[in-house]
């Protein structure tokens, strides 16, 4: 058996963490893009479209992310769409992220006082002009902190990709555990590395929230 020093364990974990970071980034960016589209759709106030977004949110917020990943990975290939673990992880994390962000942003838009819409209306601004010049500039400010806060959930969500066999930080942890039989140490390291990724994001979100609240 090969001896693993602490450094060996950490080195391997750090290497795998690159994939966690990459997966998080891709999922967050694509999730944000989809959420932007869905928010636009929701803002049209078309009853059919609004309903669609509502069901979408309900579906992906109301089912386990792990189940979504299984469906994307095993499910899709069973019905004829071959997809890699990497692809399935990105797809499911995108759906998951967008569903939560749409809902978070909805809250941000809805907290703006009704008076902002009314004042714009009596000044003669059209719906789109009101959105562009009055609502969105304010809503994005409010949305910044919770959006950064949610990125923590995305990073943590990537850990589930380990279950479908994608080698990122958590999967590397289980593999190292099998090789070293030192689960306490290995998973403590894994947890600390996630913490090192997530805590700065949490702090950033808290800072933004404070800054915004003072500015209001």
């Amino acid at each position, binding site marked *: 058996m090969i001896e693993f020093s602490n450094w060996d364990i950490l080195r391997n974990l750090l290497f795998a963490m690159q994939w966690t970071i990459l997966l998080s980034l891709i999922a967050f960016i694509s999730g944000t893009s989809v959420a932007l589209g869905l928010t636009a759709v929701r803002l049209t106030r078309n009853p059919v479209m609004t309903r669609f977004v509502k069901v979408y949110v309900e579906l992906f917020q109301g089912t386990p992310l792990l189940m979504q990943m299984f469906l994307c990975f095993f499910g899709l290939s069973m019905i004829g769409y071959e997809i890699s673990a990497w692809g399935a992880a990105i797809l499911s994390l995108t759906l998951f992220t967008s569903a939560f962000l749409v809902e978070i942003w909805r809250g941000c838009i809805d907290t703006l*006082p009704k*008076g*902002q819409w*009314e*004042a714009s*209306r*009596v*000044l*003669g*601004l*059209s*719906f789109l*002009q009101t959105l562009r*010049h*009055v609502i969105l*500039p*304010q809503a994005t*400010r409010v949305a910044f902190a919770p959006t950064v806060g949610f990125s923590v959930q995305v990073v943590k969500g990537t850990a589930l990709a380990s279950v479908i066999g994608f080698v990122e930080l958590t999967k590397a942890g289980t593999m190292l555990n099998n090789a070293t039989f030192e689960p306490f140490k290995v998973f403590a390291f894994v947890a600390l590395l996630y913490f090192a990724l997530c805590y700065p994001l949490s702090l950033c979100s808290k800072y933004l929230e404070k800054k915004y609240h003072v*500015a*209001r």
Partner: protein
Amino acid sequence: MSLVKLDQVHKYYGDFHVLKGIDLDIKAGEVVSIIGKSGSGKSTLLRCINGLEEYQQGGISVDDKEVTSEDIQVRRLALSVGMIFQNFNLFPHLTVGENIMLAPTIVLKKSKAEAQTIAKAMLEKVGLGDKFGSYPEKLSGGQQQRVAIARALAMNPKVLLCDEITSALDPELVGDVLKVLEQLAKEGMTLVLVTHEMNFARDVGDRVVFMHQGKVWEEGNSKKLLSDPETEELKQFIGAVL
């Protein structure tokens, strides 16, 4: 000639009959104060005039154009009807100057320079010429409300609707806002105010409309009506507020 004309306007919130057949005729240059208890329908009436609220029966016209609350209509209406709110509703992310310039530039399609000239002139008019670059949150309530007036004036409206615009202000700040209104009245601006400021209604206003239970209960020359009310309800109301 009449600028704002209401003809048997009825409005319902579900089963609740808010406005029960309102007739009103407001001439250009007139200053009309709408008074009454809360729940009497006075704010609703004001919001119907510029299409913020729908009404179910009757007709409202401003400057001979029919008012409905369909969006396009409201936008066209915005060119002749300005409105000021109790809570100012300034845009907090824009400076005072940008607040005023926004609608002239994107609705009236004026050039930025032109809009800026207008904004500065309007700010001077309300006595806040030095606040062009400030953000609303840095201003007192009274100053914010004057900015809101300047913002409405920048659209060069024919009539200005004021919905309890001094109610959210600290007492010592009310005077500045009323002074601006008085100046506007002198210059011949048509004003329709929902207000609790009886002194202002009597001294500056031409006419008082007393609303009660969704109806125009009593109306007439402001000095006469407030000193010598006819109906029991108005007597009670005046007794309660003075």
